[in-house]
């Protein structure tokens, strides 16, 4: 999809703001580069309170709903753990989440998800895009959609950042599908800054400036009479690169007070969540932190003790920290997985893949703290009240963020509903 940018005249450059306004509603196309040339003077680090953000904690592999948000102690499927009371009277969660229990007034639970999907990749796709995978269609991730709808063009930082436990960092173009790579996720492997962010050793700052001055002079001469949307995008990608280089400290958690870092936890997930808060604070629209791994086919209980032991305190600290900085009310927080785990405990003390009746937790922007929606039966094998799927969740995220999920994306002028038209928002959980 190419932007409509037929005109080569300089007058049209002055109407870029209108162009951007058009883009924000999704009516035009995707522009490749950043729009940073307009904001050289803007101090991008300051976050306006009206800006909204999303934090997604991805419990990779499929966290057990029975060991988290929907415990069934004393049943054949309940496992060895107890349920504990929370700050919301009558609401109990697993004893593995004592710190989260103290945050319950900020959390909302949906205990009635049925996605009917037990495959890791398909489940992840469904939960990230709100749509089933189809051979002929690629859907953008929620992160890409939000980067586009909520992102500030003034911010040189990527709109969708994914902090992964390890692996290869980089740009994941497929995440943005038809929205274009401008909105794709950027992985920070083990929280390390994006590749090539730092100026290579022997090149001094002044030499870098000099060579860029020369590059710009060349461009100005060449583009006289040749300017197009594509050349604009190209030259601006360098501005954006320069700006993110300038803001490299955003990726550096050693700038955080050690006391706070300690509260987050010295393990990977703790460091990654602290980085996530730093990124959100600096105007990254959508931050996903993956906590790995919950795919516990063997010794489910042992592994949930270990993994949730990291998750619980860190996540509670993160909520407190966001709240104390005044960010929580404008940040939608989502804790989810590709699916839940089987109520039936298998012969190796494991639980298997289970998309039939499971839970997620939400908090922050637009979410009614303490709300619990939906029910499963006594042993957790079926949803008995308010069954919802990934489409409902997608609608709910939009609404929580003050967006209309019934709007369309436009691909080659073709309207594509942002959220599955067959689903609707879970009103009872919205603030």
């Amino acid at each position: 999809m190419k932007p409509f940018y037929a005109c080569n005249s300089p007058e049209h450059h002055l109407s870029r703001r209108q162009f951007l306004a058009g883009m924000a509603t999704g009516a035009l196309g995707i522009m490749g580069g950043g729009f940073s040339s307009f904001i050289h003077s803007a101090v991008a680090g300051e976050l306006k309170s009206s800006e909204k953000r999303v934090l997604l904690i991805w419990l990779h592999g499929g966290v057990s709903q029975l060991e988290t948000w929907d415990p069934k102690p004393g049943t054949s499927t309940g496992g060895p753990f107890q349920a504990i009371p929370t700050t919301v009277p009558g609401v109990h969660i697993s004893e593995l989440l004592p710190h989260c229990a103290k945050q319950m007034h900020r959390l909302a639970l949906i205990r009635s998800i049925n996605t009917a999907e037990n495959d890791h990749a398909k489940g992840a796709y469904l939960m990230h895009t709100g749509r089933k995978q189809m051979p002929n269609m690629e859907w953008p991730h929620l992160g890409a959609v939000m980067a586009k709808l909520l992102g500030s063009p003034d911010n040189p930082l990527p709109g969708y950042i994914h902090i992964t436990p390890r692996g290869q960092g980089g740009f994941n173009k497929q995440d943005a599908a038809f929205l274009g790579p401008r909105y794709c996720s950027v992985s920070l492997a083990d929280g390390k800054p994006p590749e090539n962010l730092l100026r290579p050793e022997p090149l001094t700052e002044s030499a870098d400036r000099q060579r860029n001055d020369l590059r710009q002079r060349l461009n100005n001469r060449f583009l006289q009479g040749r300017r197009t949307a594509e050349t604009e995008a190209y030259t601006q990608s360098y501005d954006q690169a320069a700006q993110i280089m300038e803001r490299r400290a955003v990726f550096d958690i050693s700038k955080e007070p050690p006391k706070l870092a300690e509260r987050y936890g010295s393990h990977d997930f703790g460091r990654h969540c602290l980085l996530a808060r730093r990124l959100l604070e600096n105007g990254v629209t959508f931050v996903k932190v993956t906590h790995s791994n919950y795919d516990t086919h063997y010794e489910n209980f042992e592994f949930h003790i270990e993994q949730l032991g990291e998750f619980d305190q860190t996540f509670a600290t993160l909520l407190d920290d966001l709240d104390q900085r005044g960010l929580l009310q404008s940040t939608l927080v989502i804790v989810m997985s590709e699916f839940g785990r089987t109520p039936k405990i298998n012969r190796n003390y494991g639980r298997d893949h289970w998309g039939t009746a499971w839970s997620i937790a939400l908090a922050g922007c637009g979410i009614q703290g303490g709300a619990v929606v939906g029910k499963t039966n006594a042993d957790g094998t079926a949803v008995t009240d308010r069954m919802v799927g990934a489409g409902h969740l997608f609608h709910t995220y939009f609404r929580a963020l003050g967006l209309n999920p019934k709007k369309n994306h436009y691909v080659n002028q073709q309207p594509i509903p942002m959220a599955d038209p067959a689903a609707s928002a879970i009103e009872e959980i919205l603030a």
Partner: protein
Amino acid sequence: MRADDKPETALIDPAQTHLVQELKHSSPLVGCRFDPSGRFVFAGAQDNTVQRWELDGGKRTELVGHKSWVRGLAFAPKNNLLFTGDYQGKVIAWPIDAETPAPERTLDAHRGWVRALAVSPDGQTLATCGNDHLVKLWSVPDGKPLRELAGHASHVYNLAFHPGGQFLVSIELKGVIRQWDLAEGKSVRELDAKVLYKYDETFRADIGGARSMAFSTDGSLLACGGITEVTNAFAGVGKPLVVLYDWQTGKPKQLLRPKENFQGTVWGVVFHPSGFLAGAGAGAGGALWFWRPEEPLAFFTLKLPNNARDLDLHADGRRLAVPFFDGAVRLYDMAKKPA
């Protein structure tokens, strides 16, 4: 066979091990022990009960009191007490032979799961271990705490008293065995059990500890059963292993493995007074293995009908008890079958 039968080692031939009794419960079982008199077998179940079967006649009695699963069971016969520990960190003392045993005492033993407990050879001290990284000693007669043994850096998985009575050993998740001097209350030696531990980089979680731990009758050998060469922690893909330590040197003397290619975990290990070892394991199915301390591969394997979860040896030296995922305790006789 009567409970007061003496071990007649001449009659034992592990290669002839065969099922002699099946005791069924409706919920999967996680651990079991014969009482020292040999009259009962007790088993912890996933329905939070402890089941007691009288071997003679198979009468089943339910011990109700835990609110979580019980895997650790230990007896203080002089005080007629069974101690059971659960995932909640609670330890309950029960009269072994009461008609319907009720909790006599409940200890808030640990923060987090008590995976194992043991009673000292003199019957006076109960040792417990928990996810709070602690080992604790308690007075058997009155349940008073005696000592807290701190030093482990991860969940403590198992423990055993040395038959000499002076030492206790405990093993933690990350493959460290500590030897505690009971009189001093100090850790006096560390044994390396890293072969039973792995940090799985893919799943970013620890797998390790010993699911079972036992001393030989003479105290010269220590056996720790678990899983090694893990390729996928979250599917339990690895090799069952019993590490046999020379108590004197503290070094592994032998790594005992199944003879067959078997993926899974050793959930229970016992020494027979005559010197061989038996292990119960599970993965995709269950097995009983028999080893001689001097040979690395099992000399006999009995395929089990289901996933085995623990193992104990009867005072008669003939019968083995195995609790299963399918809710049964099965008793296997190692004595030669009558011709």
